[in-house]
């Protein structure tokens, strides 16, 4: 059986279990099935399909200018992909602002390829046949930082400012449910249902959480990025929707990434 067939079969088995209901024993066996699934795919992570597609998209001449992204500066200079994700978000002098990976890709698609920001952000979260260019590029670029330590800098005042704003966003409690990020993610050893909640103010947990995004989400059959994770957290927080690759999300990501500094980057991973 090839890896894709195996992944699909296992995914179907897990889906069948997870739709079987919310009751205890079933939930437990769902967790066990996912654990088995994780073991089974650990050597053939379906995210590799996204990484391969992303690498092709990175090198392929695209857009009105018909050039590739290969000269894009994503943090370590034009054309350097290896290790670049470990320094993001960072300040870029050409745009005069702190950018995360997605924001930076939108910039490069504009300057190098002539693609509008709207077009660049189209289908930003893939859904079955509607594949996302961004998620594939992010899967490829992040995979090139695997095994390297996170080292996001706060040397520039703009970076420090982004971190401070991100920290305020993290603790910002609002909406009909009075939730903030901190409600679930500022205490050690808590669970929501059976899911462990990382304390993102604690370096050890922050490292473990941050360095494992993007992940191939078994429950969704998609590679999901940190950008998507934050979007989904805000949905569950009952907040309005944060703009994709926006300055606000970059600020929050800066806070989380700095808290994860020193952790060994290890994604795309496989997740629930």
């Amino acid at each position, binding site marked *: 059986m090839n890896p894709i067939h195996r992944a699909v079969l296992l995914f179907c088995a897990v889906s069948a279990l997870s739709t079987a209901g*919310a*009751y*205890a*024993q079933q*939930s*437990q066996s769902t967790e066990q099935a996912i654990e088995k699934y994780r073991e089974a795919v650990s050597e053939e992570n379906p995210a590799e399909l996204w990484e391969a597609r992303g690498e092709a998209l990175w090198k392929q001449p695209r857009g009105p200018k018909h050039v590739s992204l290969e000269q894009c500066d994503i943090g370590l200079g034009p054309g350097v992909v290896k290790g670049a994700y470990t320094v993001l978000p960072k300040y870029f002098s050409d745009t005069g602002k702190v950018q995360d990976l997605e924001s930076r890709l939108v910039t490069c698609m504009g300057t190098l390829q002539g693609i509008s920001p709207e077009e660049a952000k189209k289908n930003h979260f893939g859904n079955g046949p509607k594949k996302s260019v961004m998620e594939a590029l992010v899967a490829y670029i992040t995979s090139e930082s695997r095994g390297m330590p996170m080292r996001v800098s706060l040397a520039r005042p703009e970076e420090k*400012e982004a971190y*401070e*704003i*991100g*920290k*305020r*966003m993290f*603790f*910002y*409690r*609002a*909406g*009909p*449910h*009075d*939730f*903030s990020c*901190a*409600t*679930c993610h*500022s*205490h050690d*050893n*808590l*669970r*929501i*249902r*059976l*899911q462990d*909640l990382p304390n993102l103010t604690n370096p050890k947990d922050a490292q473990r959480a941050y360095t494992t995004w993007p992940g191939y989400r078994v429950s969704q059959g998609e590679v999901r990025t940190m950008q998507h994770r934050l979007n989904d957290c*805000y*949905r*569950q927080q*009952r*907040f*309005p*929707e*944060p*703009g994709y690759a*926006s*300055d*606000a*999300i970059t*600020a929050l990501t800066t806070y989380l990434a700095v808290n994860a500094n020193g952790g060994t980057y290890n994604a795309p991973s496989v997740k629930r």
Partner: protein
Amino acid sequence: MKTRTLRIAGVVGAGVALAIAGCAAMNASQGGDKAESEAVALMKKDFKPHGQATLDRLDQDPLQKACTEAAESGKVLPASEATRLQQSQLATIRYPADGSYLGDWKAGEKIAQTGKGMQWNDDPKKAAGGNCYACHQLSKAELSYGTIGPSLYHFGRTRGFGTDSQKYVYGKVYNPEAFTACSSMPRFGAHGILTEQQIKDVVALLLDPNSPVNQ
């Protein structure tokens, strides 16, 4: 007895002094935190209304603001501030006009199981859930429970099934901030997440002797 009273008076006095100092510190931080106002402005610029999740949800009430500042600074709310907030929240609780608190525990169990409601992808016309199991252990059968809140298993058996317990639980679900300022639990009644009948059903889940919570 007299010395004890005096001692308590002393402790309360010191507490008040500390609380006043705490309030002064909080007022100073409210005016002085540039990053806080920048964060709010940035969210208002970059967040978009989606479905029922409109931008006014980013506006904080005084309680949310006070709790945000306390959490950010890693300090607990000064006692006097907590009491003042709790009292103002207590005034929001509307107890059932018919004086009965106990609904149907089976309906309560369904409310405890579902977390839908108020999200941008939820249908605002459909009833919301309480999602109690996300944070609390309730029945013995449901092993998929969270630990953000305390276990409520055997709640009625340990706390009593009487009207006082029922009224307390009704009020606690309606507005937890009236009892514990800066609680992580949503104000289900005060914010219109659950209806009066739904809250009664949740009360029954905790306090009906036949509910799985008390088995």
